[in-house]
């Protein structure tokens, strides 16, 4: 087996394991029937319909039959009588074909819920990433350029401070000053046009992006300092290249490995962060939907969410590995 094949098999195995775990766990937690037919889910409806059990919930005999027919109907519709692996198989095949099922809570197709919610969260994550990279790369380069001197020391202290503020606390601090006190940004998500969207996303993206920027800056700084001690930097200097050109063209590129790995690994943390941030800034995004669905046992939505997130995580990490081989050809040869 080639490296690529092994890699793909491993990825596939992880995805199957994650989805199966999530599928089993959600089916143990919530009775899917309960969301559809409510109280009648817990009644032995076969007995009621067969006429063996008359008094269902202390009411007159026969009143529960209508409801019980709905229970049977729902069981057939969602194939709830099959065993767990069979249901998992049916569900995963449906997922692979793009059929995400429908929400138990409001009977909407999950794919249309995702289509409505995901873009908002993707925009938020995209803007956060822009903030994180836009802040960390210049900051890291500036700190490494004169390492252990005044700017670097001050930025190290600042980094420690920022790193110690939890993301949700940072969000509340920003919310307090920029929304409550100075009223620069809206308190709710404005969805009129792209400008109002970006305007509403500034604070959430800052709350998500700044803590990440600190982590990336630290990583980039140490890697830059290591690279700066290599011989080719002296060669470049001897050739008479400007400091700026050496930094950005020759040193930055080979120093980005650590950062790129962490960017990839951080994606799931970022998604976790969106759940809290979206609820603070009332953004109707994917994270918030996932949280609400999990609270109210809306299994199909949670499962679709888990699948999307796990797939994204695995794919991103593969892309990170490919980026490695692009940035450093030695990986390609070794692989």
């Amino acid at each position, binding site marked *: 087996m080639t490296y690529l094949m092994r890699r793909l098999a491993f990825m596939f195995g992880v995805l199957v394991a994650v989805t199966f775990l999530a599928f089993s766990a959600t089916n143990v937690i919530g009775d899917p029937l309960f969301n559809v037919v409510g109280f009648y889910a817990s009644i032995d409806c076969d007995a009621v319909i067969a006429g063996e059990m008359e008094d269902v919930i202390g009411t007159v005999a026969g009143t529960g039959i209508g409801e019980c027919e709905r229970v049977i109907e729902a069981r057939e519709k969602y194939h709830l009588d099959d065993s767990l692996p069979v249901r998992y198989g049916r569900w995963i095949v449906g997922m692979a074909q793009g059929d995400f099922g429908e929400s138990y809570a409001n009977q909407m197709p999950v794919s249309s819920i995702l289509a409505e919610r995901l873009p908002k969260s993707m925009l938020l994550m995209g803007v956060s990433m822009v903030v994180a990279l836009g802040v960390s790369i210049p900051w890291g380069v500036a700190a490494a350029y004169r390492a252990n001197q005044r700017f670097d020391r001050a930025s190290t202290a600042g980094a*420690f401070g920022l790193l110690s503020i939890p993301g949700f606390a940072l969000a509340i601090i920003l919310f307090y000053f920029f929304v409550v006190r100075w009223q620069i940004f809206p308190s709710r998500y404005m969805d009129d046009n792209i400008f109002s969207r970006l305007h509403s996303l500034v604070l959430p993206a800052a709350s998500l992006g700044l803590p990440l920027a600190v982590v990336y800056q630290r990583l980039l700084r140490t890697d830059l300092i290591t690279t700066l001690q290599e011989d080719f930097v002296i060669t470049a200097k001897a050739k008479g290249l400007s400091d700026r050109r050496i930094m950005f063209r020759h040193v930055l590129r080979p120093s980005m490995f650590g950062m790129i790995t962490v960017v990839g690994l951080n994606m*799931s943390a970022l998604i976790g962060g969106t759940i809290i941030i979206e609820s603070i800034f009332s953004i109707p995004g994917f994270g918030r939907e996932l949280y609400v669905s999990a609270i109210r046992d809306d299994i199909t939505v949670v499962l679709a969410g888990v699948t999307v997130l796990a797939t994204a995580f695995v794919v991103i990490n593969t892309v990170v590995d490919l980026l490695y081989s692009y940035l450093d050809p030695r990986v390609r040869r070794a692989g």
Partner: protein
Amino acid sequence: MPADTSEHTDGEKLPEVVAGPDADRAAPRRLGITFWVAIGWVALVTGAAIAAPLLPIADPDEIGIGPRASGPNWDQWFGTDTVGRDMFSRTIWGARVSLMVGFFSIVAGFLVGGMMGVVSGYRRGWTDLVLGFVTYIMLSFPTLVLFLLVILLFGQGLWTVTAALSIVVIPSVSRLARAITIAFAEREFVAAARLLGATNRRVMVREILPNVLIPMSALLLLGLGLTIVAEGGLAFLGLSVADGFSWGKMIQLGAGLRTLQTAPWVAFFPIGAMFLTVLSLNLAGDQLRQYFDVRELGIGGR
């Protein structure tokens, strides 16, 4: 071989690329004043949290102990919240759940993750592949969904929340322990022990584990900061321990739009307490890490 990205940072294929953070400056072999100030603050908070029932402070749950939503003053040092509870006393009591959950989850995560990493790094082969697979599954499962599932399955007890948090710590610790183990497994003293006829288990427990756990314990303080923050995030979403309250819960109570307008200190005192504690843990942990000279722990999540 598990095709995870850590493969490239293990230093097996590309040692030059991972010369390591802080390789440029020699680690100072003493702990500075910052370290002791930071440890002092952590000790103060921990002591106050443990002794909270004995301290001469107001009952944190008693409504109307002062006027509603009054700012910091001589009677209530941190002011009162919107129903007139004493914020100073609440901040001290809030530390209890925060610190307890944070501490036990990071310790449990280090023990389990450390063990997994040592076994996987020492045995290699199939064991390594299987454990790497498990670690990767833990990493790719969305953290918050994992919490939600655990909490919905097993309830919101103190130990359940602690266990759920430690699951998040395990994969990162395990990867680091594995990398350190691989470095040590080649060393002479391990070969010597094996030549003397020591069993694999003995080599792992007596020779390798001390070498892995002692430097990694320097990272305990950094990890504790992370788990305290994570518990805060959970509590903020109403997913943490159901009985009692932690700093995260207090921040959530103070974070409503109206409360922020009329009584911002309700949110800001627990934020401040959490910030100072996490900052101290980060500072002390970083000093300790340099002291022991270990690589940074890649727990990115928060």
